């Protein structure tokens, strides 16, 4: 009893509240997305639990049980077993190749009864735990190459396996750990070059590579020109030119890779981002319809259950990846603003919580949570409003899907559990 009291007293209820709001609003939108005006189903109606809204209700119920379990388990369990959990999910990721069920072209699901579980979703949480464990090991310093290498290994093993099962979207999420690593002391040149590579990547899609070369030459010339005289050494100049040349080669490589390595549907998703009118009927269709749904919402939306874009199947994957379209269409700019605000509040709150940890493990894990949530938020909403390519990843707590709801809830509540016991931890740093 005493323990129970303690957890209820120390649990960060603000985050819990934000979580509950997300889940409820998310469910309401799933219900709206599958709502059929000719055959409106409500809880209790026959067939209700065959709909995504009905199934999601079951997932939410089981999630509550999971959360209780997490809160009951000793907070030290996660730190102790971090590598074990990581190993377990690596094993699961490998096992899907053997026992996995194929759903929508990807071979990454495990069937349990009537539901499917996607181990890849949980691998994010496991990786966050493992990273936290490794980084919080005494003497680990992210500015050292050896540690950088180990960290890279921990981060890259799951996405490689996930890529092999053709879940590109989930694999990309692991790039988000750059945020965590940056916070924990990874030299700034890494995220900087990471960002410039992304920018260069996008530029190389828009402009032919010779123009990129010219641009880079001009840019490096400018940099050399503004360099203070004492820095204008042959070594520095050669380095700048070398980097510029490497970037040019990279851009050319991207061009080549886009046309020769990527599959056509992936290539089109990127092209659509740059040219929305490209291929209007097929690939462009989804992006266009998503934008129409959101754009037609206006200031205050069409009203709950009144969306025509989402109701009449114009928007694809409307209860899962494109759930934000329902918000945009039915609740308008006001609703979208609230949802973006909700996520931003959650992210900033978790950063705040992470920063108040005495244990480095807890803090790093907290940033792991932040990194993953942020990446999902940015990419998912970004793709519905045409600022990101279509990468099929869910909006945390909103999108329909048991695996994602479970994994995000576990991810968050493990951190909240640890946070609740922060005063019991002696600082080891």
């Amino acid at each position, binding site marked *: 009893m005493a323990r129970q009291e303690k957890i209820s007293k120390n649990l960060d209820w603000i985050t819990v509240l934000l979580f509950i709001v997300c889940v409820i609003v998310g469910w309401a939108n799933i219900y709206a997305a599958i709502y059929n*005006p*000719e055959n409106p189903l409500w809880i209790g109606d026959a067939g209700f639990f065959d709909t995504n809204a009905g199934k999601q209700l079951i997932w939410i119920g089981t999630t509550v049980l999971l959360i209780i379990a997490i809160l009951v388990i000793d907070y030290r369990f996660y730190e102790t077993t971090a590598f074990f959990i990581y190993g377990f999910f690596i094993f699961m990721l490998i096992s899907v190749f053997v026992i996995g069920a194929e759903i929508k072209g990807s071979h990454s699901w495990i069937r349990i009864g009537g539901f499917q579980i996607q181990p890849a979703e949980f691998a994010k949480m496991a990786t966050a735990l493992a990273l936290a464990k490794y980084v919080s090991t005494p003497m680990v310093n992210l500015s050292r190459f050896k540690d950088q290498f180990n960290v890279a290994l921990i981060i890259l093993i799951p996405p490689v396996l996930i890529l092999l099962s053709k879940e590109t979207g989930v694999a990309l999420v692991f790039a988000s750990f750059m*945020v965590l690593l*940056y*916070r924990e*002391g990874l030299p700034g040149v890494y995220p900087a070059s990471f960002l410039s590579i992304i920018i260069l990547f996008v530029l190389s899609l828009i402009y032919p590579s010779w123009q990129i070369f010219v641009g880079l030459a001009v840019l490096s010339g400018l940099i050399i020109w503004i360099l203070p005289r004492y820095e204008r050494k042959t070594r520095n100049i050669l380095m700048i030119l070398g980097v510029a040349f490497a970037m040019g080669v990279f851009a050319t490589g991207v061009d080549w890779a886009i046309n020769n390595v990527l599959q056509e549907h992936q290539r089109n998703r990127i092209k659509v981002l740059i040219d929305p009118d490209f291929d209007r009927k097929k690939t462009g269709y989804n992006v266009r*319809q998503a*934008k*129409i*749904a*959101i*754009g*037609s*919402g*206006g*200031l205050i939306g069409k009203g709950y259950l009144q969306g*025509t*874009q989402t*109701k*009449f*199947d*114009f928007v694809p994957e409307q209860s899962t990846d494109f759930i934000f379209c329902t918000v*945009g*269409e039915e609740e*308008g*700019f006001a609703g*979208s*603003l609230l949802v*973006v*605000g909700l*996520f*931003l509040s959650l*992210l*900033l709150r978790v*950063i705040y919580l992470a*920063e108040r940890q005495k244990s480095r493990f807890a803090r790093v894990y907290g940033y792991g949570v*932040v990194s993953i949530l*942020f990446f999902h938020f*940015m990419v998912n*909403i*970004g793709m519905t*409003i*045409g*600022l990101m390519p279509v990468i099929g990843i869910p909006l945390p707590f909103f999108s329909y899907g048991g695996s994602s709801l479970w994994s995000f809830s576990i991810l968050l509540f493990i951190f909240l559990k640890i946070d609740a016991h922060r005063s019991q931890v002696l600082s080891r740093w």
Partner: protein
Amino acid sequence: MEEIRKRFIQGFFILIALIYVSRLFYLQVIDETYKLDAENNAIRKLIQVPFRGLVYDRNKKLIVSNTVVYDLYVTPKKAKVADTLRFCEIFGITRPEFDSLTHLARIYSPVRPSLMLRQLSRQDYARVQDAMVDYPGFDFQVSALRTYDSKAMANALGYVGEISPERLLKQEETGDDYYRQGDYVGVTGLERQYEEKLRGERGIKYMMVNSRGVEKGAFKNGAFDKDPIAGKNLITSIDINLQAYADSLMQHKVGSVVAIEPSTGEVLAMVSAPTYDPSLLSGRTYSKYFQTLNLNPLHPLLNRPPSAYYRPGSTFKIIQALVALQMGAISAGTGFGHGGSPINCSHNHPVASDVQKAIQYSCNPYFYQTYKRMIYKNNETNVFKKSAVGLEKWDEMVAKFGIGQSLEIDLPNEKKGKLPDVPYYDKMYGGQEKAPLRWKFSNIASNSIGEGEIIVNPLKMANVAAIIANRGWYYRPHLVKGIGKVGDIDEKYKEKISVGIDRRHFETVIGGMVAAVNNGTVSGDGRLSDIQMCGKTGTSQNRHGENHSIFIAFAPRENPKIAIAVFVENAGSGGAHAAPIASLCVEKYIKGHSDRKAIETKWMNKGYPINIIRTTPKSDNSKNPSAKKDSVVKKVDEELFLTTPQTLPLMGAEKPNTFKIPMKPKR
């Protein structure tokens, strides 16, 4: 260090959130196009075209009504035609037609129904019903077709047709969006004039459809739906019996008949000959006949009464007499001999010792002198100035008869005609710089007998007859007595307009008109024994051959019931040709039938040889020396060119009874 990095991360998150919020603001609040896109996606507007208003005659007889027809629509995605040949056979189309129609439909939308064939009759519809079960994806929609109970009055009624691209463009400019491509709209005549009343209000049904085009019920439970409201019926003032009778009298002829009820200004009949069967331009036969009619050199689609150009000829002498009497230029007893007039008299007649006789015998020199007195009736001493001042005053009085003015009849394309004024002659005789004082009375003397630069149309002259019948006033002529119910018409048709001439002068002139009919210029066929008809003949010169025969009249003398103008192109003198036709119409209207069966038959069957010969092109005319000689007259004639469809070689032989028009300004 860590603090800065934390701030960087927070800042980055906030930055992304701000970018997204501004992007959302742009998409949702600023850019309006997505709303439209969403509506186009999910809301299908079903237009329900109401029945067009019916058209009745003055005795509530139906003239124009609607017949239900069926339009065939195809939804390409659902359509399955296993046996194309049979399908084509059933609908009477060819294989290439079938292919192109279905192709067009597919381009428009695979999931939305496209119009494929228009206006299948009830019989055709019944015939294809059995076969339609084999062709899913084809649906019928009810639509309506204009139907005419008689063949009368095609031109004044006008026709309904698909809206033209020009009109759609015009609509776009005015910001209206009522019509869409393929909509039916009144193109000419009353159908056009009263389009907005006749068309009714379109109903709109908003249906929601999903991404596969399957209907998902009414949008907002039909809250925005609108039921169609049928168009308003037109109650016209036309007497369809008289109209049909006049139409038949004008067969084999080119010209017009306009009959007006003087006491109301209501048009009783309006014939434009040659006419056509109005049902030819209704429905599927439209495309087949429109070009034929449109290209016909006799211009059957031109509604002559308000739109054609003619010189009034001697009918204008009535106005001259009235204006001169009112001015005091002459009195009822003023007489003129034939001497001293450059215009000869074509009639052998006793000396015109007073106004009545002058009208009775249509004496040219008399009106030359009268006109001269009117023009010179002022105190100017310079002859040029005198002419200009005189013409201005004369114009003012003549204009009140509607000459050169719009009568604002409820028909499209009414032409004002021409009442030449001072600037007009200044330009005509002064060249480009409009030099004043370069013409005098002798240059405009032809106006005295209605042969100069004055241009009228049959409607105007019928109205002149009505003015005289009323002894000095008129209501603007109109064809519609009521929209929906009698009396619901524009206020302008209820306004009594005076022409500013004393009543006693009319009695003088009417005396002359009675004499003209009974013992004057009107031939025997145009005389009525039991109805006192007052009329005036006119013989309008034109460059296209034989003179146009004109007659205006009203009857009976006291309490007139009908005023009429008859124009028969290239028929000859007014008294011999137009007058008999007018007399038959008057008789028909007043008595309900004509007792003069032989005359009736004669005039119904009479035709005039119409020479349809292309003139030499205009550019060739300038090479013709004789054309150069009378360039001034030609200028006028060029305007008159619009009058008649058929054209003869320019310098046709002068008829013995034509007037000599002063050819060149005398200086």
